[in-house]
């Protein structure tokens, strides 16, 4: 009897829904469509979308599930990118070394700054992550041997055990898509795992979590490191996609854009982060074609989405679907 009632509410738990599978399916087909048109342009654009989607996933993981609003996540992207660039400047271009290195360095930065940031809450947390982000930005700008403010061009894309795995734009595209799917799968698994339950519980009621015996700070720090590593992965891919790295990757505007992507797509949904990254970057691309001041159009659009579509684009789609199936 008891197990019967226990299992009932759980069956209705979140499954990977068809829309998400369709989304990855469309992304997998893009290169075939691109072959008919401006291939380099389209592949480059969607690669960029997916790279930022990984960073947006990390931000959604922290904000949407951990309640930790980070305003400095571009720093992790920059650290991942700079790891590739600096290693490249010293002749190390193999990703068997640079990828783990990018993850370790960004994870370590997350561990150290998280130890300080997570002592604070709410607005103070936002401000201190912003401060660390700006620190990273200015440090990158002062790296004179590696281009300083001007940035640095990569000698070549990363190789894997000497193989040119990123040799074509298409190969890079699929590597990025694979990374995005893996990141999405990882975030999903973690969010619903034992750890994730503690992480989500800490957002709900940290006092309650402490009184049942959880050291909230430690769990949040682990979550922060996971998000930091994802940011680093995004940076690693960004450096390879653009073959160029500059401090601008770490500016606070970039961190703000990641939050906008997540809000735009739908906070606390994970796939919303991917949708948001796509919507933001594609709108930017499209609107910028009309006018230099595209943000004048994008700004009100964002306000409308946040005001009238709680849950972002993903929430909007869900409510439209609900309305259609009701009739």
């Amino acid at each position: 009897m008891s197990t019967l009632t226990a299992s009932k509410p759980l069956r209705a738990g979140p499954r990977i829904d068809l829309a998400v599978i369709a989304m990855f399916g469309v992304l997998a087909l893009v290169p075939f469509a691109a072959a008919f048109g401006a291939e380099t342009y389209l592949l480059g654009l969607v690669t960029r979308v997916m790279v930022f989607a990984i960073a947006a996933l990390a931000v959604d993981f922290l904000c949407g599930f951990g309640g930790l609003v980070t305003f400095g996540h571009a720093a992790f992207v920059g650290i991942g990118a700079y790891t590739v660039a600096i290693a490249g400047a010293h002749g190390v271009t193999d990703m068997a070394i640079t990828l783990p290195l990018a993850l370790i360095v960004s994870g370590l930065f997350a561990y150290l700054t998280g130890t300080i940031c997570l002592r604070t809450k709410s607005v103070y947390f936002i401000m201190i992550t912003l401060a660390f982000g700006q620190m990273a930005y200015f440090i990158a700008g002062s790296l004179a041997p590696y281009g300083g403010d001007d940035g640095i061009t990569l000698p070549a894309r990363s190789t894997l055990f000497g193989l040119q795995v990123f040799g074509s734009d298409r190969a890079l595209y699929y590597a990025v898509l694979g990374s995005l799917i893996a990141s999405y799968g990882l975030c999903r698994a973690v969010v619903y795992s034992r750890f994730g339950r503690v992480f989500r519980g800490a957002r709900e009621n940290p006092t309650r979590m402490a009184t049942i015996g959880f050291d909230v700070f430690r769990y949040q720090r682990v979550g922060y490191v996971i998000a930091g590593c994802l940011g680093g992965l995004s940076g690693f891919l960004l450096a390879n996609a653009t073959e160029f790295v500059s401090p601008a990757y770490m500016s606070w505007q970039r961190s703000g854009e990641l939050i906008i992507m997540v809000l735009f797509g739908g906070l606390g949904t994970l796939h919303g982060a991917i949708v948001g990254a796509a919507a933001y970057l594609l709108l930017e691309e499209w609107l910028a074609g009309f006018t230099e001041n595209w943000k004048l159009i994008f700004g009100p659009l964002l306000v409308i989405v946040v005001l009238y579509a709680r849950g972002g684009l993903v929430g909007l789609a869900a409510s439209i679907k609900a309305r259609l199936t009701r009739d």
Partner: protein
Amino acid sequence: MTDAVLLIENLRKSFGGLVVTDGVTLEIGPGELHAVIGPNGAGKTTLIHQISGTLTPDDGRILLNGTDIMPLPPHERAKLGLARSFQITSVLPRFSALENVALAVQARGGSSYKFFGRAASEAALNDEAMAALAEVSLDHRAGVIAAHLSHGEKRALELAIALALQPKLLLLDEPMAGTGPEESERIVTVLQRLKGRFAMLLVEHDMNAVFALADRISVLTYGRVLASGEPHQVRNDRAVTEAYLGEELE
């Protein structure tokens, strides 16, 4: 040494010039239900906060099963077997009732640094959580989001969370606060059923509940223990009657 589950010695705490805990000494034996009563502002909740670790006393000692827990943060005290309910209901509002309790089971047993596998599908956690919910007669509401439970059900849920921790000592901060007479009665019944399984410290304004449940009662006024003893002793203590009970027990 005594075999007291909780031993508080000469505890002191003041906020600026206001003394809220003034040399409180208290002992709770195994399975004993010790009620602390007193007028508003007597320092009852402050006392609970100090035992659970959310407030740091200025002076004194707090021993849990002989271990000095004063230097420990709240989560480590919880690991030693200290559970508490809050005066203002404190649950995880967006989690289901079952998940609220399953998280407590998870806190007690096994690692929470597992990053794969759905925690909500772990039968071992859920079965134990269901058992705890059944003890407070909330098993039929297991799948309901905590925010959607009635006030009385939330209070019962807090008890189930505490039960799932299998505590050595349970601190109850006004478990009947804000509940209607029917729901109060239900909580009294639950507490009566739990009595004896572990030590409890009960802070409560409902005198009928206190006298129905308590093995011992301490009366707190202005942060000081005015009297302490078995219910009939306290009831007949003149100082207590004058200070506090008078109008309620006439």
